[in-house]
């Protein structure tokens, strides 16, 4: 036994009193201020140069930003993005599960698909679907290659510009999504599968109820990345004559010669749409963080506030309020 008391100090004893909270002068960060001034100077210069560029007609940018054709193009861009990503994600999950299947045929088919669609340029793939009618006059479901047909249709009426672009973008995306989903599935601890199997759950139930929901945490960040990338890749749909944002800008600038102005107009739209996607991704990530952390990460607004506070002061002692799942004691 030693003299030092190991238990909690008795109430009222000297050791039990809480010492005064520390009030120290925080470390100053002069370099933060210097760098801020330098960055602001560069930014101001860039804005000034652009704003006063002699041949840049800013009024035209404003005039076309909400022009009907541009708005229609923006809607179409968004539709293409959604359609291609829906195909990409759905098919990607199927391909990932096939790739990990104990059935060698499934695994091999999936491997081949990914090899083929990742290995050829997406521009070529869109163009191929758009030109399908050149090699195939009809598309149908039949018994043998030359009929009799259960159902068939002229290729020209099936493959309209939007279909060609969606197929090209979506089927290509599926190959990339398959690898993202596979990485997510592999990241889930094997004990989870075992525990679920021990309860008598089937392979499909284990995948659907236990593994995929946990894989989502790993799958979503790169999927957000893919979606944002897709939003801009839809501009390749111009080869299939889909009148999306970029095609519209091309059409307008070829008749008005407002080339750079139109590039500004569509860039503003692309930036606006990607910003919305970024925010959406954030909230989806928060949703799937359920149970993974004791507290949910802060919302963008909360982290913005925190950034303002920490710019010239040490990080706050008390964490900012977080709308969290109830955090129990351990």
């Amino acid at each position, binding site marked *: 036994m030693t003299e030092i008391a190991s238990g909690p100090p008795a109430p009222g004893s000297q050791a039990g009193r809480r010492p005064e909270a520390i009030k120290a002068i925080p470390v100053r960060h002069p370099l933060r201020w210097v760098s801020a001034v330098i960055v602001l100077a560069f930014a101001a210069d860039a804005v000034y140069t652009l704003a006063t560029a002699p041949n840049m007609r800013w009024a035209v940018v404003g005039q076309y930003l909400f022009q009907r054709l541009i708005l229609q193009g923006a809607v179409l861009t968004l539709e293409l993005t959604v359609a291609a990503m829906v195909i990409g994600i759905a098919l990607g999950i199927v391909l990932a599960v096939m790739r990990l299947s104990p059935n060698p045929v499934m695994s091999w088919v999936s491997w081949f698909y990914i090899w083929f669609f990742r290995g050829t340029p997406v521009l070529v793939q869109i163009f191929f679907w758009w030109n399908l009618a050149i090699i195939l006059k009809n598309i149908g479901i039949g018994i043998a290659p030359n009929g009799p047909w259960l159902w068939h249709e002229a290729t020209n009426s099936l493959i309209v510009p939007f279909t060609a672009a969606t197929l090209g973008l979506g089927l290509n995306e599926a190959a990339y999504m398959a690898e993202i989903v596979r990485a997510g599935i592999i990241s889930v*601890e094997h*004990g*989870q599968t*075992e*525990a*679920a*199997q*021990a*309860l*008598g*759950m*089937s*392979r499909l*139930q284990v995948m659907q*109820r*236990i593994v995929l*929901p*946990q894989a989502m945490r790993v799958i979503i960040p790169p999927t957000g990345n893919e979606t944002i990338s897709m939003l801009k890749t839809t501009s390749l749909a111009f080869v299939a004559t889909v009148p999306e944002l970029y095609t519209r800008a091309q059409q307008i600038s070829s008749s008005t010669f407002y080339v750079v102005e139109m590039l500004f107009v569509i860039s503003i739209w692309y930036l606006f749409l990607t910003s919305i996607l970024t925010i959406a991704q954030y909230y989806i990530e928060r949703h*799937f963080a*359920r*149970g*993974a*952390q*004791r507290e949910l990460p802060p919302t963008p607004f909360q982290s913005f506030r925190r950034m303002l506070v920490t710019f010239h002061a040490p990080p706050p002692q008390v964490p900012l309020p977080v709308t969290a*799942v*109830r*955090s*129990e004691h*351990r």
Partner: protein
Amino acid sequence: MPAVSMVRAEAVHKNYGRLEVLRGIDLEVQPKEVMCMIGPSGSGKSTFLRCINHLEKIDAGRLSVDGELVGYRERGDRLYELPDREVCRKRSEIGMVFQHFNLFPHMTALENLIEAPIRVKKESRATAVTRARALLERVGLAEKVDAYPKQLSGGQQQRVAIARALAMQPKLMLFDEPTSALDPELVGEVLDVMRGLAKDGMTMIVVTHEMGFAREVGDSLVFMDSGAIVEKGDPRDVLANPQHERTQSFLSKVL
């Protein structure tokens, strides 16, 4: 004595490639019996446990639960591998508790308990929830119904895991070192739950390092080393008076 043993192993062999993990296990567990398995790590205790619910396939010998072969059907002198559906149905009758709990982290305690009864046994949600609440109360966690696993201590998580296995109303419970990953002060609460289960007549096979538990609760004790059973018998006898030299040296190190 009931006619059918709950678990019956005859010359069970298992190898990983050229490594022999189980080298002829013979044992029998009667209904309501609590069998404890001890032995150094790598001796094959956990592997044997995992063979019982077909998480591992055996390579030779016969292993049956409640009179039915595990993973196979025997017709004439031929063995037919069971389809996945049958394997799942049999697993659903055997509860398993893991060293690292393996609770589903994206589900609350209650959701962990009702998942398999609803999906596998096709019970109604109401029935499953009623039983789940009763079970959580039985393991002393009535107020943690809506907590996620991350918000619980190790001991609480393991108690939820036991309740999750019980929610399927198993006829046999397998425990794979249920207290090995716990802080020493949390071991007691988990053992208390297991003691209660044994008293209620559950058939249990417990791989453990808790000699006190084996002595007090176990009906039989098996000491395994390098894939074989070295000694078995009444736990009080084996622990107090081990016959085999290998058992003596193991017990002298852990007791």
